[in-house]
């Protein structure tokens, strides 16, 4: 099954995305955020909490103060460590506790401070690389089911129930398990600590929770003879920190979108731009596949109208990802099956959109999201809508397949719901395994015309965005029908201009030599 699409238009879209990214990248290069600095602190060993449960990373950033922070948290930590002849991690812990004053490093020359950072920074990057090689080795021994990767979510709010659910899902055929975060976590300006058993509509993302899940899935994977991937959510006020923790705990995927927080959580856009860049550099190094959030555009607005916005956003997300050093195989662009199921020929439109994405981004592990908006309490009809979604996915060779749940409109998935969903997807995908390869799309027919229209319209939008700039475009509701201003939204106070001698050892080490593809 192939669409005849205009390669010139596709190339032009990529060119426009680059033009859109340029000024944003320039901004990113000149700024940092409290979240980026906290991630640096964590990578340098600043883990755990101080009194009152404040994470060490937050306490350090707090105590360094705005002025010092402008040079990068790392530099202060290196200086204090150097001055006191202690380890950088120790310095961080001491500063966080208030046992050492940041001033105590002020006399140390930048050179020396940087030198003190060298070993711990290299060690952190090596730990991450080691986790990545671990994954590679485990994957090499794994006998996976045929693609796409069947992906399910767990979201009980209690990490131990989530663990039970995740293992059960793995046994029932899941290749990827994502732990949905508690509502509201993305608006917290810190990462909670420890194993958690209370959350609403999801479970807190914490380093300990990551560990618990990773261990359980490794154990299940060993038993089942196939590696089971673990996923969590980065986008939010703590994007870079979650990326750091995910890298350390061998998560395999992270939800990481260059605009999701802006549009859907009213997080400041500049904060998000800076945060996504650094977090993605870490994802790249960790071999973590990012999942972008274009599907969200379709859960609120009309899916037929929004298809061009999805495609335009995919080009932009791809461009930002490339600039952070992510190769195509780590860019899980989002899409969703959200067209009104009761619309005549809606399945043809879905095929057009999914196949278009497949051809435009041939090497990207496309993330295909299930029907959600049009799911109702009629679980029987819902199960059928999900079946059609599964069919579209296998026909168009999507890569990461989020299994739809028959109870989507009712509750976060029950253990039994997941089993039904996985069984259902396996049935549909197996019975129609090669259907897409055995059929051809009628030239000039409904499907092809629709794909053309979407591509043309995306191109037109990208052109407009390139003209007015991404910030203005977001303000003018180009995406998801919401308007956000450059200085509005949450977390803007955490964005700051870098001092001329700003230093971030990880950024230095991970800066891509050239934009990969």
């Amino acid at each position: 099954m192939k669409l005849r699409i205009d390669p010139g238009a596709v190339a032009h879209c990529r060119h426009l995305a680059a033009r859109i990214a340029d000024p944003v990248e320039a901004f990113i290069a000149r700024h940092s955020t409290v979240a980026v600095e906290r991630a640096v602190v964590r990578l340098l060993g600043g883990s755990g909490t101080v009194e009152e449960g404040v994470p060490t990373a937050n306490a350090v950033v707090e105590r360094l103060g705005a002025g010092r922070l402008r040079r990068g948290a790392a530099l202060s930590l290196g200086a204090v460590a150097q001055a006191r002849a202690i380890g950088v991690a120790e310095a961080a812990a001491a500063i966080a506790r208030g046992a050492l004053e940041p001033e105590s490093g002020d006399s140390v020359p930048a050179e020396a401070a940087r030198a003190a950072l060298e070993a711990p920074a290299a060690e952190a990057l090596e730990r991450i690389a080691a986790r990545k090689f671990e994954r590679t080795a485990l994957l090499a021994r794994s006998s996976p089911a045929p693609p796409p990767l069947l992906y399910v979510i767990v979201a009980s709010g209690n990490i131990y129930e989530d663990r039970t659910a995740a293992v059960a899902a793995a046994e029932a055929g899941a290749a990827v398990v994502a732990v949905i975060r508690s509502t509201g976590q993305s608006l917290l300006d810190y990462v909670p600590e420890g194993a958690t058993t209370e959350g609403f509509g999801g479970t807190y993302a914490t380093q300990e929770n990551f560990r618990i899940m990773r261990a359980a899935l490794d154990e299940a994977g060993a038993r089942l003879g196939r590696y089971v991937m673990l996923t969590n959510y980065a986008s939010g006020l703590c994007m870079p920190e979650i990326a750091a923790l995910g890298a350390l705990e061998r998560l395999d995927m992270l939800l990481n979108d260059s605009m999701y927080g802006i549009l859907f959580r009213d997080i400041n856009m500049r904060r998000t731009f800076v945060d996504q860049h650094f977090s993605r550099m870490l994802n790249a190094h960790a071999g973590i596949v990012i999942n972008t959030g274009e599907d969200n555009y379709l859960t609120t607005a009309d899916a037929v109208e929004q298809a061009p916005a999805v495609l335009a956003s995919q080009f932009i997300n791809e461009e930002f990802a490339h600039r952070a050093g992510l190769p195509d195989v780590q860019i899980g662009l989002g899409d969703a099956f959200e067209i009104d199921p009761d619309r005549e020929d809606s399945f043809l439109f879905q095929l057009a959109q999914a196949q278009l994405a497949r051809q435009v981004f041939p090497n990207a592990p496309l993330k295909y999201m299930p029907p959600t908006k049009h799911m109702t309490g009629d679980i029987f009809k819902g199960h059928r809508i999900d079946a059609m979604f599964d069919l579209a996915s296998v026909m168009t060779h999507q890569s990461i397949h989020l299994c739809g749940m028959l109870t989507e409109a009712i509750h976060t998935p029950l253990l039994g719901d997941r089993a039904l969903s996985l069984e259902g997807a396996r049935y549909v995908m197996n019975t129609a395994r090669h259907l897409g390869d055995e059929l051809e799309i009628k030239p000039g027919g409904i499907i092809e015309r629709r794909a053309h229209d979407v591509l043309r319209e995306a191109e037109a939008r990208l052109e407009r965005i390139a003209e007015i700039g991404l910030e203005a475009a977001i303000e003018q509701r180009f995406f998801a029908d919401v308007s956000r201003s450059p200085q509005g939204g949450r977390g803007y106070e955490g964005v700051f201009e870098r001092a001329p001698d700003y230093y971030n050892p990880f950024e230095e080490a991970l800066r891509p030599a050239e934009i990969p593809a």
Partner: protein
Amino acid sequence: MRIKPYGDTRDDGVVQLSFTLPLEWSESADEAARRLVAAMGFGDVSVAEGRAIASGFSFFVVYAKTSASIELDGLAAAVPRERTLSMDEVDGLLRERVGRKVRIAGACIGTDAHTVGIDAILNMKGYKGDYGLERYAMFETFNLGAQIAPRELVRFARENDIDAILASQVVTQKGSDVRNFTELAELLEAEGIRDRVLLLCGGPRMTNLLAAELGYDAGFGRGTLPSEVASFIARRVTA
């Protein structure tokens, strides 16, 4: 009149059930399922499907007959359903009897960010072809949006002479909706402005009965149309 579920014959009481048991599957797991459904009070229990879905978990599909029945008389009274007024009627009523715009504040409270529902009620565009409250001449609406702390909503109401508060909760897991709604109602009491405002809540699982339990003036569930809410408000502020 009492009625029972209808399978293929009046009063046969046939019900379909499905559930998961934390139990390794075997034939005795099927028997466990049968006994469980019998213990729930069903008769003629037939385990149509029972199978392992994971180690230590089995899934069942069961058909059985209930002896429970339900009395229809008086039911309509328990779920009163007044005729929905047209936009003109609502505006007319308010113009005549209140003589000024009724001030409405809506929000999706707590950490809940599902604004589509409350937007559907408030925004101009409305829902399923039924215009939202913004479109009514005699309403002045303030849509505070997502993730609004109850405290913030109460402060806004006090500072802006709000007549009606519309709170939405879509995430219901582990009773988070009940918790947030309760907090809002209690804050209003604490601030002493509970009787000055009309307090409405809504969300896909809301019912009037639950709303009443929570101390709200009304609750609106899945599929609510803006005009139904408008009618309710108009009737209550002019009653």
